[in-house]
C-alpha cells in the first residue's frame, strides 16, 4: 500500500480536498432557491429539525414560524423513520439536530430507551393524551393514522362478491388470491399490518393467522408503492388484486372530480393505529428552539395542514379535517394496538418469524 505517500501528503491533500469541496458547496448554493444554510444566522439563531423523508409542510407555515420566533428552521430528512431513529441512536453523543419529528410508535421505545430524547412536557390537547410514551414526556404525539386493508369497490361489484370486512374474512376461500401486503422487514405499512394481526390474535395467535393467509395465496410486495401501484386493481393502479394494505387516508385521492362516492374504501376493522411523535434531542445545541418547534407542530395551523401535506390525521381532534377526508377517510373507531414497549421488545423476533413463515 502506498502508505508513505499517504502520510506525507495527507495534510496538504486534505486541505486541498476541503478547498475543492468548499468551492463546490458555494457553487451549489449560489444558484438561488437553495434553503438557508446553517451559517446564515437569523437574529434568534438556527434550530435544526431532524425528520424522515415523508416530512412535508407548506412553506407559508415555515415562514410564519420563523417570523414569529426569530429562528431559522433548518429541516433535515434522514431516510425513512427506521433509518432516522437508528441514526439518532448512533449519534446521540453528538446529535445532528435539535428537535426530531416522525418517530412512530413502532420505533418510539427504541428511541426513548436509547436516551436519544430530552424530557419536555408540551401542552397536549385532550385527544393526544392517550398516546404519550415515556414517563417524562420524551415524546410528544403530533399526528396519527391507520394502516388498513383497502378494497377496490368497483372490482367487487363487477365480480358480484361481498366486500370483506374483518381480518378473519381475508382467510376465507372466496377471497383467495385477492390480497396484496407489504414485507414488514422493508415497509412500514407492512410492519403495521403485521402488528394489527398481533394485536388481533395475540403474540401466540398471529402466526396461525398468517399460515391461513399464506394458504389463501397472499401476495407480498417490498414497498407500499409497489403493492399499491402494481398489484392493486384500484383506479390509479394496474394490478389484479382488489385488496391491498394501505392507509385509511388513501381513498380520497382516488375519488374522481365531481364524483359523490369513492371507488375504494378502507376496511376499518383491519386497522393498526400509527402515531408519529416529536421531541427535543438530548444534548441539543438549541434546546429552547427545539421546544418551540414541538409546540409549533402542535399548533392549530400546522395540525390543520398535516392531512394534505403528510396524509396523517392531526392528533388534536378539535382541528377540522378537509371535507374529502370526513367523507371518504374516517379513522377506525377500534383500531388494533400493541404497546410501543412490546413492539420494541419483539419487533425483530416477529419480523424474523414472519419471514420464515411466509417465505418458507
Amino acid at each position, binding site marked *: 500500500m502506498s502508505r508513505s505517500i499517504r502520510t506525507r501528503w495527507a495534510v496538504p491533500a486534505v486541505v486541498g480536498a476541503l478547498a475543492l469541496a468548499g468551492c463546490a458547496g458555494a457553487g451549489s448554493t449560489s444558484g438561488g432557491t437553495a434553503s438557508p444554510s446553517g451559517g446564515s444566522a437569523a437574529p434568534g439563531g438556527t434550530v435544526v429539525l431532524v425528520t424522515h423523508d415523508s416530512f412535508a409542510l407548506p412553506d407559508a407555515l415555515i415562514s410564519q414560524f420563523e417570523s414569529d420566533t426569530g429562528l431559522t428552521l433548518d429541516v433535515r430528512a434522514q431516510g425513512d423513520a427506521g*433509518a432516522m431513529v437508528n441514526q439518532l441512536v448512533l449519534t446521540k453523543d453528538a446529535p445532528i439536530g435539535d428537535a426530531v419529528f416522525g418517530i412512530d410508535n413502532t420505533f418510539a421505545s427504541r428511541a426513548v430507551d436509547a436516551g436519544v430524547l430530552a424530557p419536555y412536557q408540551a401542552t397536549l390537547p385532550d385527544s393526544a393524551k392517550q398516546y404519550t410514551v415515556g414517563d417524562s414526556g420524551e415524546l410528544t404525539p403530533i399526528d396519527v393514522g391507520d394502516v388498513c386493508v383497502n378494497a377496490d369497490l368497483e372490482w367487487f361489484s363487477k365480480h358480484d362478491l361481498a366486500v370483506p370486512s374483518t381480518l378473519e374474512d381475508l382467510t376465507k376461500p372466496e377471497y383467495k388470491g385477492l390480497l396484496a401486503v407489504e414485507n414488514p422487514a422493508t415497509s412500514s405499512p407492512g410492519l403495521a399490518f403485521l402488528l394489527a394481526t398481533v394485536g388481533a390474535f395475540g403474540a401466540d395467535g398471529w402466526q396461525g393467522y398468517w399460515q391461513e393467509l399464506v394458504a389463501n395465496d397472499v401476495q407480498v410486495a417490498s414497498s407500499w408503492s409497489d403493492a399499491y401501484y402494481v398489484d392493486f386493481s384500484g383506479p390509479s393502479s394496474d394490478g389484479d388484486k382488489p385488496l391491498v394494505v394501505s392507509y385509511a387516508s388513501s381513498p380520497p385521492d382516488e375519488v374522481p372530480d365531481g364524483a359523490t362516492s369513492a371507488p375504494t374504501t378502507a376496511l376499518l376493522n383491519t386497522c393498526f393505529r400509527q402515531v408519529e411523535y416529536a421531541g427535543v434531542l438530548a444534548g441539543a445545541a438549541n434546546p429552547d428552539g427545539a421546544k418551540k418547534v414541538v409546540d409549533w407542530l402542535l399548533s392549530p395551523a400546522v395540525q390543520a395542514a398535516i392531512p394534505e401535506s403528510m396524509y396523517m390525521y392531526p392528533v388534536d381532534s378539535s382541528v377540522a379535517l378537509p371535507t374529502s377526508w370526513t367523507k371518504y377517510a374516517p379513522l377506525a373507531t377500534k383500531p388494533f394496538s400493541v404497546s410501543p414497549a412490546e413492539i420494541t421488545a419483539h419487533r425483530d423476533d416477529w419480523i424474523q418469524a414472519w419471514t420464515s413463515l411466509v417465505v418458507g
Partner: protein
Amino acid sequence: MVLWALAAGLPLAFLGLFFVLPVVGLVGRGFVTDGSLDLSGFAEVMSRPRTWRILELTVGQATVGTAIAVLLGIPGAHLLYRTRFRGQALLRALVAVPFVLPTIVVGVAFRSVLSGHGPLAFLGWDGTFAGVVAALVFFNYTVVVRTVGAFWTGLDPRGEQAARALGASPARAFWSVTLPALVPAIASAASIVFLFCATAFGVVLVLGGVGYGTVETEIWVQTTQFLDLRAASVLSVVQLVVVTASLWVAGRARRRREQALSRVPESRPVLALRGPDARGGDRLAVAVTAAVVVLLLGLPMVTLLLRSLRTRDGWGLGNYRALGVRGFGLGASGWEAAATSLRVAVDATLIAVVVAGLVALVASRRPRSRGLRRAVGTMDAVMMLPLGVSAVTVGFGILVTLNHPFGLAVDLRTSPMLLPIAQAVVAVPLVVRTVLPVLRAIDSRLHEAAAVLGASPARVLRHVDWPVAARSLGLAVGLAFAVSLGEFGATSFLVRPSAPTLPVLIYRLIGRPGADNLGTAMAASVLLAALTAVVMALAERLRGDTGGDV
C-alpha cells in the same frame, strides 16, 4: 516527483476522508462490544444458512447480470461507436437513459410489464432471479456500450484489416485480433457492472420478491431497521471480500492483455446492411442491438412514458403541467427539483473529474520500481471500492465519523457540500474506468521520446496525454453527470427536504396515493430521462470536438 505524489495524494485523501474513514468507523463499531474487540459476530452470522443463501444469490445475480450485459453490450458498442448511421447520436443518448432512472420507478415499470396482465407476464419472471437479472442488464447495458465503445473507436483497424487480407474470415479476424485487443476495456466495464449488480438495492427489493435477499439488502435491513451493527458489519466485510476478489480477477484479465496500442483518428464506416459494403458482423450487431433496445430497454421505458400521459380524465399532458406546481409540501416543483439536480450534478461532476483525472493519470504510469508499480496498482483498485460498498454503510458512517474529523473545526456530517461529494465518490470509479484504458494504451515510448527531446513533464502531459485523454473525457463527464443525476442511495440521506433533487421528488411522489401523484412521478421520471439524454448527447459532442486533435 513532488507533483506526482500530490497527484496521488489528493484523490487518496479525498477517498480516505469521505469513504474509507466512514466505512471503517461504522464497521468498526460493529466489532466492538463494551470497549473491546469482539469478532464472535463472524462465527454467528456465518453459521446462519440464510447468510450463505444471500451470498450465493449476490454472486449469482452479479455474475449472470454482468455476463449478459457484456455479451449484449459488445455488439452495441460496435454499432454505436464503430459505424455511422442516421439517428446514431439519439440512440446513443437513449441507451444511457436507464442508467439514471430511479430504481423505484424502474421497479414499478418492470413489474407492470412482467406481472398481472403485463405484456410479458407469460414469462413468469415476476419475483424471480430472471426478473432481477433482466433489470440489472437494463440498468448496466450502457456502461458496457460506453466503456467498450470509447476504447474501440480509437482502436487501429489495420490489425483486423491485415488479418482479413491474409485470408481470415471476418469472424476469425474479430475473434483473434479485435476481441483480444478489447479485453482491457471489457474487463474494465465488467468490473464496474459486477459491482453495480452486486450492490443493487432497489430493483432487488422490488423485483426479487419476498425472501430474495442480497448482501446489500441485508445490510440495509440490519442497519436501518434492526440496528444490528454486528451483523451489518460482518456482512460489510463479506461484501468487501466479494468486491475485492472480483476486482482482482478483472485486474488480472486486464493486465494480461494491456499493451500499448497504436491509436488512430476515428474512422467509422457508414453502416451498410445491403450491397457490396455489407458486413455479416454488422447485421448480427444490428439484430442483437435492436432486440435489446426494443424489448429490454424499450418496453419498460414506453410503459413509463404511457403512464406519464395517463391522467384522471384520460390521455393528456396534465401530469407534465403538474410538474410546474409546487405539490402540497413537496418542497419544490418538478422544474425546481430538476434545477437542483443539475446544479448538484455540475459540482459533483467537477469534483469527480478532477479526482478521477488525477487517479487515471497516476495509474496510467508504469514506474520502474516494483514497489511503486504495486502502489499504483493498489491505488487503482482502491478507487473502485466505493462502487462495491453499501450506500447505507457510507451514509451511516459519515454520521458516525465526520463530526470534527482529525480535529478539524467543522461538522462535516450535515454540510451541504456533502451531497455533491457523495455523488462524486460514486462517479469517480466510472470516470477512472473510462479514461484509464485509453491513457494506458499510450505507448510509453512517446513519453520517453518527448522527455529526451527536452519537453518538461508538464509539456509531455499537455501534448502526449491530454489529446488522447480528452477524447474519452466527454464520455466520462457524461457518465459522471448521469451518476449524479440518478443517484438516490446516498442522496436520500443528505438532501434537504426544501430542495429535493429530481429522484428524491419522484420517490416522494410515488409514495403518495392517487392517479395524480403517480402520474406526476412518471412525468418527472420522463423529465429526468430527457435531461439525461440531452446531457449525454452534449457530452458526446464535447468528445467529437476534441477528438480532432490527434
